[in-house]
């Protein structure tokens, strides 16, 4: 079996398990909606104010939703002893990393695809621009690249779910800054040129951390 074939098997396993239980997507989706609504109450009602804070609310929401979904992904493995099962399989640790990462990416994208139109509806904004889609996809890749690594680390500690946000949020600060800035520009109709420096940073972050996490993952899940 080739590398990508094995990766797809793991991603498919996660997807199948998710399709049957719908654990991650439903709960995280509801959480996302609730956070958006709560932020709405927090920031008051004027239309200009909402246009200003909208990108920030969007990305804080996605960051928290990402933490939740990444946590669930590895906790499930830990509970049923599946992680040991995976490690005993004749596959390299990197296959596990890429497989889990693609699974988390898929779930986050599904959540974002559903959340964005609702966000547009509640905030009265145009979100279906190609710019915003690209920003969202690139940033999500960055989230899951680092998040999969840290989530595997977090489930092996005493505090479990609590550790992931402490590790994850400082590290993805550049992603959040650039995504919020770029989203704000995209929502006000800016073309690709104005977004380029932000997208470059997001792209660089993705490339660097995909590679770094790929190589370090083995150290995290070894006993």
């Amino acid at each position, binding site marked *: 079996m080739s590398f990508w074939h094995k990766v797809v098997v793991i991603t498919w396993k996660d997807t199948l398990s998710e399709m049957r239980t719908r654990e991650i997507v439903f709960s995280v989706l509801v959480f996302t909606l609730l956070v958006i609504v709560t932020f709405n109450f927090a920031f008051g009602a004027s239309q200009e104010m909402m246009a200003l804070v909208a990108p920030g609310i969007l990305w804080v929401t996605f960051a928290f939703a990402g933490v939740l979904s990444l946590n669930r992904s590895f906790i499930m493995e830990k509970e049923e002893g599946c992680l040991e099962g995976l490690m005993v399989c004749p596959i390299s640790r990197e296959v596990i990393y890429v497989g889990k990462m693609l699974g988390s990416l898929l779930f986050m994208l599904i959540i974002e695809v559903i959340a964005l139109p609702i966000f547009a509806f509640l905030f009265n904004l145009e979100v279906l621009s190609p710019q915003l889609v690209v920003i969202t996809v690139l940033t999500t890749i960055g989230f899951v690249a*680092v998040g999969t690594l840290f989530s595997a680390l977090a489930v092996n500690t005493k505090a479990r779910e609590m550790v992931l946000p402490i590790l994850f949020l400082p*590290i993805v600060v550049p992603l959040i800054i*650039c995504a919020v800035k770029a989203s704000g520009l995209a929502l006000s109709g800016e073309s690709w040129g104005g977004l380029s420096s932000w997208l470059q*940073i997001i792209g660089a972050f993705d490339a660097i951390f995909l590679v770094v996490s790929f190589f370090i993952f083995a*150290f*995290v899940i070894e006993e």
Partner: protein
Amino acid sequence: MKRKILLGVSALKMVASLYLVFLYVPTEEAMGIVQRIFYFHVPVAWVAFLAFFIVFLGSILYLWKKDSKWDVIASSSAEVGVVFATLLLITGSIWAKPIWGVWWTWEPRLTTALVLWLIYIAYLIVRSFATEESRGARFAAVVGIVGFIDVPIVALAITLWRTQHPGPVIFQGGLTPPMLLTLLICISAFTTLYLLLLMQRISMKNDEIEIRRLKELCR
């Protein structure tokens, strides 16, 4: 013996720094007396980043060679480094209040310092929350490596973000020779202090490991 010499040298440099900062160097014209905190703030910042670099090197070497002495170096450096990072934030705030009128501002350097501090904290928390020592060491090494690689990206993103809203300027003009001399002596003094504290902590950790080993033998 080496550490006693280092202690002496460090004390000497610190006294020299105090003399230079408070008695020798002339008062800067724009900011007045408060500017003298610059001579503590910059060395502390330099040491905080140097310490994190040592954490990074120690983490890589630990994961690669699997020799626990690298982990001892990395974790000791992180503990000393977090103190300097805290001092960085405190001296930054103390300087900011009279000059800019606020305790805190989301200005690039301060914000990057804050994120550095948070990553240090994450490193230390991961160690204490692990189920066993060796796992804690490995996890912390991972955080050290990822964190250090992340810091330049954080600095870049924050600087780009903040130049859209220009903040207050730190300094007009360059450094006159007396100021430069004072700054260099202070940097040297703080670096020596860092090395002293690092060696002290490493020696303590080695003693802790030795004690644990002896306890196991006595069971």
